[in-house]
């Protein structure tokens, strides 16, 4: 039987409510539960989950809606108590905040008049509109939200470029500006390496490896995954490179991207060739064999960091960085156990795994045609569990273990599985104890396998630094104590997993060759707004997810929390009326 509880005028952001939904759904006697704000779009989601009720129909966009499917009515009070407790605890933890919370741009700008970055994490369909408001107020924009159309992305990036501003994103998960981590980012030592990346976990892994190897970064600028497509033409990456070229403390520039469109790649490379600073670049999946002029090409994220660090220290670049370090454990596998299941929370980390495993299997390019899989062939699978198809109405696997545990179990049921390869991504934004959250699932699989006389190996990398809010040593030891093989980098973890089933991916030594063609004269001047961005601690208007504020306040940035809600609750007629009454 369905029960509906409407809490009027009680707004919570969707991530919070998804986590709360998960929590309630684990209560005994609850068949199904969904907790969301009563927006028209959410009501459709209720409908598709078979949880639509008459009372729900009457709820407004600012009403928190709880629909519970349970056989016993007494459960409802328990649910309500649990909900209240969850929400109250949160208000206690919020009560000592060091920043102001606002609900309108007007008030945000008054609260932080020198704000120079708007960090936008609204639902995608509203992100472009909010980004334009930020640009109109001469602020750089970091769009964490996904689901922004490419036409909108193009338009706002062109507008930003004309105003000398940067639009980082959309779907930009990671950013470090002057030592301040924004969105999902690690706390990395400061140094002389400046990064520009079109991939969130790509930036996280490279910055973490730089930190681990003893180096540091000036900035790590995310551009959003589509920036290097032919439709966008690397507008953000080019402006960011020019900014880093002019930035004094940045002595080495690093570029991270999945393979770009050909003409865009040429344009970016030409710009890089014209710089007086050395550059390390990784276009994931490209398999480069040479370094060209001032551009050093890497095959893996770890190698990118290692080359950057040698350049940063003025050391000669070595011909090869991709040997496995450390012993590969002896394995005890049944004859049918031949495959690896890579179950990643970080998209680019998964992409790196898919690339290396494909090469190991001699498959060449690793493009899977099945949605949600980066690789799926002969029992070998690599999935990016942060992909949209897994996160509809569910939290991202970096903040919630459930999806991953389900996939672990599914992988364990496959008799061919020898190794489950995964990542634990630390840093701001991520789960406070992902190792601990995954452990029960891992141990259950180990025990079930043991009962059947099998061993399933877990190999993982923990992407984090010692300065991260989570305790990395503790995260690692929790996993190691449970028998998980932990490696220092994703590259090492993948190669170790492959070696355990006797597959070895050889990397050829790279040679130095001169630049393919002479760099044309390039305009490498940067705007004063970008120069300012790169020379100051950021002041941020955080539009959306409140959890992003702590990274900023704890690392010397300033922030105002904009408790964003859809304009006019998403009512289209009212949006129009408001736009004509400006």
């Amino acid at each position, binding site marked *: 039987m369905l029960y509906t509880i409407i809490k009027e*005028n009680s707004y919570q952001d969707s991530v919070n409510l998804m986590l709360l939904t998960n929590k309630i759904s684990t209560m005994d006697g609850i068949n199904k539960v969904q907790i969301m704000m009563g927006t028209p779009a959410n009501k459709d989601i209720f409908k598709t989950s078979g949880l639509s009720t008459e009372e729900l129909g009457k709820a*407004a*966009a*600012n009403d928190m809606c709880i629909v519970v499917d349970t056989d016993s009515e007494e459960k409802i009070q328990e649910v309500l108590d649990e909900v209240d407790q969850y929400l109250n605890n949160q208000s206690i933890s919020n*009560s000592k905040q060091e920043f102001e*919370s*606002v*609900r*309108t741009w007007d*008030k945000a700008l008054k609260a932080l008049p020198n704000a120079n970055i708007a960090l936008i994490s609204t639902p995608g369909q509203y992100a472009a509109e909010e980004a334009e408001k930020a640009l109109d107020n001469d602020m750089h924009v970091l769009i964490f939200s996904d689901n922004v159309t490419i036409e909108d992305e193009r338009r706002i990036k062109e507008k930003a470029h004309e105003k000398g501003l940067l639009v980082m994103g959309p779907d930009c998960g990671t950013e470090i500006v002057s030592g301040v981590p924004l969105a999902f980012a690690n706390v990395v030592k400061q140094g002389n390496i400046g990064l520009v990346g079109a991939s969130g976990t790509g930036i996280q892994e490279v910055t973490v490896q730089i930190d681990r190897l003893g180096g540091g970064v000036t900035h790590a600028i995310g551009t959003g995954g589509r920036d290097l497509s032919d439709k966008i033409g690397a507008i953000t990456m080019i402006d960011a490179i020019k900014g880093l070229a002019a930035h004094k403390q940045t002595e080495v520039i690093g570029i991270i991207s999945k393979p770009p469109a050909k003409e865009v790649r040429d344009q970016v490379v030409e710009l890089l060739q014209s710089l007086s600073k050395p550059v390390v670049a990784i276009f994931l999946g490209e398999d480069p064999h040479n370094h060209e002029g001032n551009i050093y090409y890497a095959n893996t994220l770890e190698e990118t960091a290692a080359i950057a660090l040698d350049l940063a220290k003025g050391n000669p670049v070595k011909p090869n960085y991709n040997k496995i370090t450390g012993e590969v454990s002896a394995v005890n596998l049944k004859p049918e156990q031949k495959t690896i299941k890579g179950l990643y929370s970080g998209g680019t980390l998964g992409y790196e795994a898919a690339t290396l495993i494909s090469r190991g299997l001699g498959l060449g390019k690793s493009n899977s045609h099945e949605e949600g899989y980066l690789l799926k062939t002969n029992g070998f699978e690599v999935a990016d569990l942060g992909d949209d198809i897994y996160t509809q109405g569910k939290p991202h696997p970096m903040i919630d273990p459930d999806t991953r545990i389900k996939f672990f179990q599914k992988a364990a049921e496959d008799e061919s599985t020898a190794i489950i390869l995964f990542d634990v991504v630390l840093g701001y934004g991520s789960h406070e104890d992902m190792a601990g959250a995954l452990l029960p699932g891992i141990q259950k699989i180990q025990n079930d396998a043991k009962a059947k006389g099998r061993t399933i190996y877990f190999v993982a990398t923990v992407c984090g630094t010692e300065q991260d809010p989570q305790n990395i040593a503790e995260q690692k030891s929790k996993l190691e104590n449970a028998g998980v093989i932990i490696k220092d980098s994703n590259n090492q973890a993948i190669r170790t997993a492959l070696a355990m089933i006797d597959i070895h991916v050889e990397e050829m030594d790279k040679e130095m060759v001169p630049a393919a063609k002479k760099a044309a004269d390039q305009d490498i001047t940067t705007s004063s707004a970008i120069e300012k961005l790169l020379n100051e601690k950021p002041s941020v208007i955080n539009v959306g997810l409140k959890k992003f504020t702590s990274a900023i306040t704890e690392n010397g940035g300033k922030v105002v929390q904009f408790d964003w*809600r859809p*304009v*006019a*609750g998403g*009512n289209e*007629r*009212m949006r*129009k*009326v*408001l736009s*004509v*009454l*400006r």
Partner: protein
Amino acid sequence: MYGQFKTIDEANRAVIDNVVSSSPFLVDVVLAKSVIKELNGKVLLHAGPPIKWENMTSPMQGSCVGATLFEGWASNADEAFAMLKNGEIEFIPCHHVDAVGPMGGITSGSMPLLVVENRSGGNRAYCTMNEGIGAVLRFGAYSQEVINRLGWFRDVLGPVISKALKVKGDGLNVNVAMAKAITMGDEFHQRNIAGSLIFLKDIAPYIIQTDAADKDKQDVIQFLADTDQFFLNIAMATSKAVMDTARQIQHGTVVTAMCRNGYEFGIRIAGMGDQWFTAPVNTPQGLFFTGYDQEMACPDMGDSAITETFGVGGFAMIAAPGVTRFVGAGGFDDALKTSNDMMEICIDHNSNFSIPTWDFKGSCLGIDARKVVETGIEPVINTGIAHKEAGVGQIGAGTVRAPLACFEKAIDAYAVKLGLIEPAAE
């Protein structure tokens, strides 16, 4: 498009400048029918936007019965009910005749009214006097005790205060009293004890000097000393006088009135003049006196939300930490959050009423209907809660929200009136 103003923002600024430059004085107490000509017939004023008898809540109907008895139009309650039901008595909203009324807001010709004159606009506004607590007309009681008190108001309280004000000569400056009281913990809707005390302090010396009988003087002073909410009605008449001056500018989106009749909530915005935009009222939520609960609460009533329109009441929750728990707002941080939230839908701070607990920021100024719609933040109103049955009286206090739909309708109509958008298809 916006008259002499280039933009809506400019028009709104002009409206709120009128609020800030207001100069309201309590000048007199007079019989209602002497200043409101409509009340010379069988007419009753009521709170909120226009309403029919059959849609009135039980307490408002009870108030109508009380007023009918008080005026001597009927000799008993049954007769009064019959007359009211038969449509023998006409109903007019207080707001249509420069008046405001608390809760039921029922006002008849023989009731004495406070007169507040806004000298910056030259207009006057009227409100009945606060009856205290217990069995009172505004909550729908119509017992002999209630009728007797109304008689004493007419024959003693009104005339004595009127005489005192005449001795004083140029009226009492209400802005000054409010500026003091807000620093003493009043927000002028749920808490008026400081304002009431200041009024008593200001008026007592003049009461003594009147030629009224000593017993009457003593009774009046005792009544004022006993009636913690006396100042509420002064604040209401003041808010009405000031907002009526402000809305002489008929452009822009500043809210110029908010009121409720137990059936509908109504608002006006400057750009739409006298037109009401209504939506079904909510029922207040809050704390209840022992023996009563939320089930017994009457839907929202009264013109007292004119105080919130003026920027005090629920908007000034931060000024009145003493009552935050009573109105269900929790602790100090919640009060702060309430006022900060309300500031999101207002245009500026009113420097006339600086609030110490708010870092001396002024009270909220100018609700912009656009901001209400944009943010979905509904104005919060501090209110007493009536029992839904007539005559039981006040059973608690709490808060209630102005329904978003009123604001949506208002700005929609304004955009249509300006020709900026086609009317929505029905």
